[in-house]
């Protein structure tokens, strides 16, 4: 069994009285692939916001890493440097810049302004970019502006940027949205491959996609965990059927 990488316990957060997350507890090990499903408003995005430091919870603990340090009170950028990468629902790449520039920015390197100002391109960095471009099928597009890429390619570029960060935990929000079946298959492969060496959390609406990931599934509803287990286990749970699949 893998050791725990991230642990949330008793986390609650409310917006104007609405409890978006209600004493949620969650654990993920390293390496592990995990899918999170749930109806709209179940708190999936807020869950990611809490881990990445965008939203501060009202109560609860978020512990990270071998030493169990608290992520609360750390800035978004500091959490990212700790090794948590996040992919947004909408592909957000820097469209005015080339694919290579996008990847170079994400490469794991010192992040201070003066480190960046006096940054020298290295051979290792260039090789790493080639490697990631290969994995994400963007080798031929390295010099193109990211804005010219297709929707699916942008999603892959964003996954590539995440890989370049060399995170220990990858949070992926609806990667398959708006993709063709062939693109979905490739995305599945990329995520499964990435999860061999690190923790990957995939938030997804599409049951078929989740089934193909073939991993442990956590079902969120009204801000807390409703069920957890294999896809067959959770889809046969009557409560899950009622709140989610039944609709």
């Amino acid at each position, binding site marked *: 069994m893998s050791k725990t990488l991230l642990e949330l316990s008793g986390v609650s957060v409310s917006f104007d009285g609405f409890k978006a997350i209600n004493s949620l507890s969650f654990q993920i090990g390293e390496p592990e692939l995990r899918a999170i499903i749930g109806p709209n408003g179940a708190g999936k995005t807020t869950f990611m916001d809490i881990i*990445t430091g*965008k939203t501060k919870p009202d109560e609860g603990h978020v512990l990270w890493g071998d030493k169990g340090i608290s992520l609360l009170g750390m*800035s*978004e*950028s*500091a959490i*990212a*440097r700790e090794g948590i*990468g*996040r992919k*947004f629902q909408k592909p*957000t790449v*820097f*469209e*005015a*810049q080339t694919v290579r*520039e996008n990847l*170079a*920015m*994400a490469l794991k390197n010192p*992040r*201070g*302004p003066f480190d*960046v*100002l006096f*940054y020298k391109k290295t051979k290792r960095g260039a090789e790493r970019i080639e490697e990631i471009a290969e994995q994400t099928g963007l080798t031929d597009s390295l010099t193109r502006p990211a804005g010219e890429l297709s929707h699916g390619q942008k999603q892959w570029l964003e996954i590539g*940027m995440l890989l370049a*960060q060399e995170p220990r935990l990858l949070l992926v929000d609806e990667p398959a949205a708006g993709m063709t079946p062939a693109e979905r298959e490739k995305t599945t492969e990329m995520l499964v491959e990435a999860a061999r060496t690190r923790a990957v959390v995939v938030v997804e609406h599409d049951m078929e996609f989740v089934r193909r990931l073939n991993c442990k599934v956590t079902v969120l509803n009204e801000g807390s965990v409703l069920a957890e287990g294999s896809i067959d286990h959770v889809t046969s749970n009557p409560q899950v059927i009622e709140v989610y699949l039944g609709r």
Partner: protein
Amino acid sequence: MNRSFIARNPSVLWFLAFLGIFTLAVTLMAEATGTGFISTSFVKTLGKTLCLCLVAIAMDVVWGYCGILSLGHFAFFGIGGYAIGMWLMYARTETIVTDSMAAQVVPPSPQEVSDAIASQIFGVVGASEFPPIWAFAHSLPLQLLMVVLVPGLLALVFGWLAFRSRVTGVYLSILTQAMTLALSLYLFQNDSGLRGNNGLSGLQNIPGFESTPQSMVSMVFFWASALALALGYILFAWVVSGKMGSVIRAIRDDETRVRFLGYHVESYKLFVFTLTAVIAGIAGALYYPQAGIINPAEIAPIASIYLAVWVAIGGRGRLYGAVMGTVFVTLASSWFTGGGAPDINLGFYTIQWTDWWLVLLGLSFVAVTLFAPQGLGGLVDKIARKS
């Protein structure tokens, strides 16, 4: 900075070549060093325009590249001018006072000299003592240090407070306007220590060079302004190239995403804001000795808005665009408002350009925004791409 930097940025080389030719041409046509085809006052106008170009490229870096629409960068420009003006005024008054006291039988004590200088400078505002902020005015090196330190520190503190609170967009613009307005209003007060609305004057007279004619002084400042613009251009071109440029353009386009990449966005904004403020201060310190006078009206909010207009007309996100916008608008402005443009008689109404210039400028700003969002610099890009 190495050879590959220039190789990757041919526009820098083009710009430097153009600036070099321009400087040489003006030198050959000026009164002091050439044929005299260009008057000394026009040399000063050109020198001042080069300084405005320098502050405009700073504005382009902070706004066009990093996406911070600062409407207060002219405050830093003004502070640079005041900082050098204090020394110019002090040193010149000191010369006058010691000369006039030399005739006295009993040599004046240092205190008497100091009092005499103070009452000379501050007589207009009814004071006769040096305010604390003039503590370093006697020393050129210290006052030159103030030219970079004061704008730098102000930008650092202001930027730290604003960026840390995640003030962005139009709110930040309003805050920067408030900063420059507050500074301007403060300086308008007689007890601000900088002579209130009189400002500092006689700055064109350089202490120690009283016998040098203004035609020569203006040339030296013109060369210094050209050199400062060249160095500033290289510095900024270097900053916005490579990975730093990549990150700050990314901050402009989507700062949240940059944060999740692990970059501390606020540090980057603070770096860009402070660096550009320092360069703006240097530009101001070269500008005001050519203008001869600085007063608080110079840093009124409208001045910083003009700066944004120049950059917008020239085309954001390209340094040569900022230079083109500045040259075009300031020279057009002095032509239209200086009586160069003939009035247009419509029969029922005569368009006098001194009144209508601002309307024309406003219309051209709207036209550029609507029809040529890439500005004048965008035209250059089109031509460069075709050839």
